[in-house]
C-alpha cells in the first residue's frame, strides 16, 4: 500500500509539474516534450488504478501518435512564439474563466458522487461488470459493443468525417507532376517499348 501511495504522489507531482511547464516554458518544443511527460504520468496513474488497458491506449494514441503530430507542427511551422506571448494578459481572463468553469463542473460531479452515490451509480452499476471478474480489456469491450454501441458508432462516424474533411481540405491535384504508376510499369512489355532492328554493316537506319 505504501509503495502505491508513493507511486501515486510521484506520478501526480510530475504530471502537475510538467503541466505547469507546458504553459510556462519558453521553447515550444520543450512545451510539447513536457506535455508528453504529463501524458506519460497520467498513464502511470491509470496503471495504479488498475486500468491497464486505458493506460496503454493513452500511451499508444496520445504519446505515440497525437504528440508526434504536435511535435511536427511545432517544429515545422515558423511561428514567432515570442509575439504570441504578448497577449498573455489580455487572454488571461478568458482562460481563467474556462478553467473556473471546468473546476466547478468537476466539483459538482464529485459533490454529487459524495452526497448521493446511488443517484450517479445506479445507471452505471446496471451495466458495469463487477471488477475482478474479468480483465478490463474485456469489460470495456463488453460495455462498448453492447450498451454504448450507438455512441461508439457515432464517435466512429465523427472521426471518419473529420478524416475525410482533412483530406478534402488539403488535397490538391497539381497538373504536370510526373508520378510513378506501378501498375503501368508492371504492365509494360518489351514489345511495347523497344524495337530491335537488324542494321546492315556500313549503312545507317
Amino acid at each position, binding site marked *: 500500500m505504501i509503495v502505491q501511495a508513493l507511486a501515486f504522489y510521484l506520478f501526480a507531482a510530475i504530471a502537475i509539474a510538467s503541466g505547469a511547464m507546458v504553459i510556462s516554458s519558453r*521553447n515550444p*518544443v*520543450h512545451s510539447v*516534450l513536457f506535455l*508528453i511527460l504529463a501524458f506519460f504520468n497520467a498513464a502511470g496513474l491509470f496503471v495504479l488504478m488498475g486500468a*491497464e*488497458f486505458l493506460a*496503454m*491506449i493513452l*500511451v*499508444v494514441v496520445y*504519446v*505515440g*501518435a497525437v504528440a*508526434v503530430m504536435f*511535435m*511536427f507542427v511545432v*517544429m*515545422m511551422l515558423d511561428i514567432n512564439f515570442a509575439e504570441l506571448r504578448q497577449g498573455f494578459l489580455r487572454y488571461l481572463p478568458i482562460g481563467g474563466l474556462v478553467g473556473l468553469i471546468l473546476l466547478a463542473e468537476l466539483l459538482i460531479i464529485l459533490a454529487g458522487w459524495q452526497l448521493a452515490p446511488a443517484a450517479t451509480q445506479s445507471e452505471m452499476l446496471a451495466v458495469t461488470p463487477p471488477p475482478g471478474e*474479468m*480483465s*478490463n*480489456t*474485456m469489460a470495456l469491450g463488453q460495455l462498448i459493443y453492447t450498451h454504448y454501441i450507438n455512441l461508439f458508432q457515432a464517435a466512429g462516424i465523427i472521426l471518419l468525417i473529420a478524416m475525410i474533411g482533412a483530406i478534402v481540405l488539403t488535397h490538391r491535384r497539381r497538373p504536370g507532376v510526373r508520378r*510513378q504508376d*506501378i501498375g503501368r510499369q508492371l504492365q509494360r512489355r518489351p514489345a511495347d517499348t523497344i524495337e530491335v532492328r537488324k542494321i546492315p554493316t556500313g549503312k545507317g537506319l
Partner: protein
Amino acid sequence: MVEFWSVWIWPTVWIVIKIVAIVLPLLLAVAYLTFAERKVIAAMHRRKGPNVVGPFGLLQPMADGLKLFLKETVIPTGANRAVFVIAPMITFILALVAWAVIPFGQMSDGTPMVLADINVGILYLFAISSLGVYGIIMAGWASNSKYAFLGGIRSAAQMVSYEVSIGFVIITVLLCVGSLNLSRIVEAQAGPWGLFHWFAFPLMPMAVIFFVSGLAETNRHPFDLPEAEAELVSGYNVEYSAMAFALFFLGEYANMILMSAMTSVLFLGGWLPPFNIAPFTWIPGPIWFILKIAACLFVFLWVRATLPRYRYDQLMRLGWKVFLPVSLAAVVIVAGALITFGWMPARAG
C-alpha cells in the same frame, strides 16, 4: 524487521536479479549482433569481414566498444544541450524496457518465464515501440543541423506510418488468441502438429507484413531513409559522437532483436518446439526461442545485404496504399472466418 526483509527487500533484490539476467545477455547479444552483421554481409559479399582482433575477429565488438568509450563527447554549440543529451538515453532505455514482458519459456509448473506477466503485454510492446520515435525526433531537432533534422522528420513519418499496419496485424493475431497476454499468445500456438499451428501458417500474409513493417519500424534496410548516407550524411545521429552515438547504435540493434522476438512470439510460436517428437522436445523452450530470434535476425541482415534502399515516396506508398488496406481487410476477413466457422477462441482474459 524480519517481515520488512521478506516483504520489501527480498522481492526487490529478486526482481533486480531477474532484470540483470535479462539485460546482460541482451547487451552481449547486441554487441555480437554487430559482429554477426559484419560477418554475414562479408560472407554474402565473398569477403572475410573482421578477422584480426581475437580468434576469428571475435573480440572486434569489444574493441569497437572500447574505442567509442574512449572518444570525446562533442556537443555542438548551437545544440539544445538537455534534449541533445536525453535523446540517445531515451532510445537506449526504450529498447531495453520492452523486454520486461517478453516470455522466454515455461517453468515446469506451467507459469511463463517472464519478468512481468501483464494482461496487456502486447499493447505494452506496441506502446514502447511507438515511443521509440521520440529519441530520433528529439535528436534530429536538438542537433540544430539540417541533415539531422531532415533525418529525424523522415524517421518520425516513417515510424508513425508503419505502426498503423503493425497495429492491424497485431489485431488479427489477437482475434485468433482472445487475449493480450504474450504467454497466452504463445500457448495458443501449441498443438499436436507442431509448427503447423504457429500463426505464421494460418496468417501467412500478415506475418510477412509484420516483418516488413518491423524493418521499417527499426529503420533498417531497405527502409533506412533516416540515415540515408548518400543524401543526409548519416541522418539524425550525424552530430553525435562517442558514447552518445554508441547508445543510438546499440538501441537500433536492440530494437532489431526486440522486433525479432516479437515476430517469434506472434508468429513463430515463441518457446514451442517445431515438432512434438522426442529430439525436439528435449531442447528447453528458451533455446528454441533464441534460435527463432536468431533466424529472424539473419533475415534482417540478409535483407540488408540484398536489397537497395527504397525511395521516400515508394516507402510511403508501400505503407499507406499497400500494407494498410491489406491488413485492414485481413482484420475483417479473419474476424469473419472466426465467426463463420465457429473458431472464436474461448473467453480467456
